């Protein structure tokens, strides 16, 4: 492979001299550099939160935390939705419906996110966020309880076959796994911002606002500020914050990696309905 690679580079260098190639490559390299900076910034910012989630999850797993408590803990104090990448192995031990509800609620309606939403976007969007998340969480729980679905192999390994959760993993392993779940979303966001920068502008209609929220996937602590700036109307703000936490690439990638593609698809469908409910509840308070 190395020989083929080196040979290809040498042949390419012979065919196209640097004074021809470099001017053509320079703009592409500049774009790639910006995409890398955007993607890296997402991972660098999220890393401390993933680390905290990983440490708490490891401690809880080692202490043999109750399966119900394992799902409730992140709902009360996740810190930020980025921490969910760390908490996921802990939540995966809970019964499927509770795990489903916990994954949706912790990401979208954690205390800090609710506080920021109320302070910046007002009571109407605050209530819409709760209503939409409740619907999305309940529908996901219903879907996960009814479907005969197997979790992803990465979530439980060989233990799943015997119907038991996998043995506790180390904090480093959970941290690395959380980073891996974040990388596809960060890459997508970085490339999209470079390829189509004009999507990052104000959107008055709920649908484009939701698409923008899902694409840039801001932290739950910051989505209210961005919604205020990028979505001038309350219905669009509700759609933005809901989609940013429940339909974003970061959340869906984490769900797919931890619980499997089909469960992630159910969560996405339920979250779409949750978004619609949030928009409806703002328009018809």
């Amino acid at each position, binding site marked *: 492979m190395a020989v083929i690679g080196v040979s290809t580079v040498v042949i390419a260098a012979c065919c196209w001299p640097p004074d021809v190639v470099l001017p053509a490559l320079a703009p592409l390299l500049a774009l790639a550099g910006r995409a890398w900076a955007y993607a890296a*910034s997402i991972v660098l910012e999220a890393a401390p939160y993933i680390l905290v989630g990983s440490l708490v999850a490891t401690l809880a797993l080692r202490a043999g935390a109750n399966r119900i408590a394992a799902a409730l803990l992140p709902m009360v104090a996740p810190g930020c939705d980025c921490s969910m990448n760390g908490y996921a192995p802990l939540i995966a031990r809970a019964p499927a419906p509770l795990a489903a509800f916990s994954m949706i609620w912790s990401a979208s309606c954690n205390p800090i996110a609710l506080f920021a939403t109320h302070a910046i976007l007002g009571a109407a969007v605050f209530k819409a966020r709760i209503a939409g998340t409740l619907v999305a969480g309940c529908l996901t729980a219903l879907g996960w309880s009814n479907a005969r679905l197997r979790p992803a192999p990465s979530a439980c390994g060989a233990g799943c076959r015997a119907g038991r959760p996998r043995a506790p993993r180390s904090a480093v392993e959970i941290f690395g796994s959380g980073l891996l779940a974040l990388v596809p979303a960060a890459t997508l966001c970085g490339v999209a911002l470079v390829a189509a920068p004009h999507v990052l502008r104000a959107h008055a209609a709920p649908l484009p606002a939701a698409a923008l929220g899902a694409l840039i996937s801001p932290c739950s602590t910051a989505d209210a500020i961005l919604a205020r700036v990028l979505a001038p109307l309350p219905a669009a703000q509700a759609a933005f914050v809901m989609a940013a936490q429940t339909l974003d690439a970061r959340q869906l990638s984490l769900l797919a990696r931890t619980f499997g593609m089909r469960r992630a698809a159910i969560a996405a469908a339920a979250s779409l309905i949750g978004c619609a409910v949030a928009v409806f509840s703002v328009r018809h308070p």
Partner: protein
Amino acid sequence: MIARCAAAAFAGVALLACVSGAYSSLTTLRAWCAWCVAVFAAGTVRDVKTLACFAAGVGAGCALPHAAPRPAGDVVTHAPKAGYSGDLFALLDRIDRDPAGVIGERVSVSGTWGAAAADQPATVSRRIMSCCAADAVAVGFDVVPKRRVSIGRAAWVRVTGILRSRLADGEIRYLLAAATVCRLPNGAPKARSARPPRGPAAKLSATPCE
């Protein structure tokens, strides 16, 4: 093993970003926090494979910019309402509370200059970064200068003009019409989000503010 390799590669990127200052320019994290997570991740480097991943991470970290990249997208003319300080944010908040009371007034704001492009008007804006460089947004006003302005992009300026509103692509945008633009010295803004750029762009000649 894959997770450990990911953590090792991250450690390489993060440590280099801490050393070069890229961590603080690309994120809102405190330096000590960035160092803690980088050192924790570096603890995964224990064998040849993870060392190779760490080295690859260091290489990738070299490509990170030392200054924050300019925000993607257009300048947005809506108030963030999140406690940002500065005359530009104060004016946006006033517009947010009572647009009719402010439109038509002669106002003055300071921010980063964005020269006019083919299909875009000139702008004065400030960058808000609520989380990381990827979700940084430029917030400010369109500017229609009274006369031709020869100020380089990203220079720190004061713009004085009459506030108007217009409809563009179904969105209400606010602009400063018949505006005068003057360049401010570096270091005027105190807010982190409003830090002016250093370098050649800021040194271009323009009318100094009186």
